């Protein structure tokens, strides 16, 4: 069973629908015991970093997720759920994340050239092309050139050791990260059509 962590952040309809569409057993839960019994964990998230971390701490799910990840259970963070896997974020102040992947989350805008700042719209929203920079089980059914759907204004940086795929938006935007059993996608696989379904399928086969 895949436990989709419920901590009151974002809309889980599409994610759960896509897992079920793939014939996978998925349950939305905030229950530590159920998460402990699951084969895999997905950490979703939409909204602001600080809110998401506050909610994870309030519910004690920060320690549950960290503990499970450290015990070796496959964990996939999606969008903001990927960002909280890192050490820190600079979204509205500096905030500590779960620290499962070294790196930090910073505004895209600050790292763009002056010309790109004027030309590119923020949030980075829409379909962008993946460039795979590291072979990993999560992307085993994906190819460079596949398009995935992004909606975000902050991105993970200083994480060269774990980057698995990037998308170009003035700068290389961290698209997917892998550090052992801990994985994340900045894009939304549940909104990325067939390409996204293939990534979720690959995740469901990891460690299984």
């Amino acid at each position, binding site marked *: 069973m895949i436990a989709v962590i419920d901590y009151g952040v974002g*809309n889980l*309809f599409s994610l759960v629908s896509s897992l079920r569409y793939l014939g996978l057993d998925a349950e939305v839960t905030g229950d530590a015991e159920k998460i402990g019994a699951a084969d895999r964990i997905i950490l979703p998230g939409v909204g602001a970093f600080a809110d998401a971390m506050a909610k994870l701490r309030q519910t004690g799910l920060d320690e549950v997720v960290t503990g499970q990840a450290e015990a070796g259970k496959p964990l996939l963070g999606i969008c903001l759920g990927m960002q909280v896997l890192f050490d820190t974020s600079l979204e509205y102040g500096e905030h500590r994340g779960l620290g499962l992947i070294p790196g930090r989350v910073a505004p895209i805008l600050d790292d763009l050239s002056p010309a790109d700042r004027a030309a590119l719209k923020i949030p980075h929203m829409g*379909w962008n092309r993946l460039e795979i920079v590291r072979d990993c089980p999560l992307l085993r059914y994906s190819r460079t050139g596949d398009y995935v759907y992004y909606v975000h204004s902050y991105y993970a940086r200083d994480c060269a050791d774990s980057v698995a795929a990037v998308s170009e938006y003035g700068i290389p935007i961290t698209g997917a990260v892998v550090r052992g059993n801990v994985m994340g996608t900045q894009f939304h696989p549940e909104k990325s059509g067939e390409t996204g*379904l293939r990534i979720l399928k690959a995740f469901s086969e990891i460690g299984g």
Partner: protein
Amino acid sequence: MISKRIIPCLDVRDGRVVKGKNFEGIQDVSDPVELARYYNETGADELVFYDITASVEGRGLFTDVLRRVASQIFIPLTVGGGINTVEDFDRVLKCGADKVSVNSGAIRNPDLIGQAARKYGNQCVVLSMDVKRVDGMFRIFAKGGREDTGIDAIEWAKRGEASGAGELVVNSIDTDGVKGGFDLEMLDAMAAAVQIPIIASGGAGKREDFAELFCHSGVDAGLAASIFHYKEVVITDLKRYLREQGVEMRL
């Protein structure tokens, strides 16, 4: 770089997709779930569903349609029509919408944009506007294009962006249903006024209209209904053609 988007729009009434011309003469087209599946298979980048139902029963049918589509099709879904309160946002988001488009609801209560943006994020709020020329000015029309609100469309777009809209759907009543091409003059004026993505609507009749549209760099997406519904233009072919013309397309 992000690709330009091709977006079919499905007007849904009483559980069926319908299409009118210049907002009038509504005709039945097909089953929304089947049509959505067809668009997903032919490479649509996103789908827009407008609820043009008047009755309570129709509204129930609409949310049922939305739930069925959202559980089978995994590309972004935008929902509009009958969105007047933050509770309406909640209702459609729970049924699988990713973005919610406001039109008349924002004209009646401009605070709705800000309220929804604070709760769901700017990326979730799409400001949709029906624009028509009156005395050489672009004006916002309400009630499905029948009523001149007197509001200047460019000012309305700027105000929407400042309030927290994450995207604009700009529909030209002057070109809608005519199939003579998009309203490029109006779209350029909009693009010069705001930074948020612009989805152009109204006037697409053939694939060349989209090629011309995307020469205007301020436009991010092209939306159309009948030419896609009646397969006058097949999205797969359109996107291949546009890529050949040098437009970045997801294929």
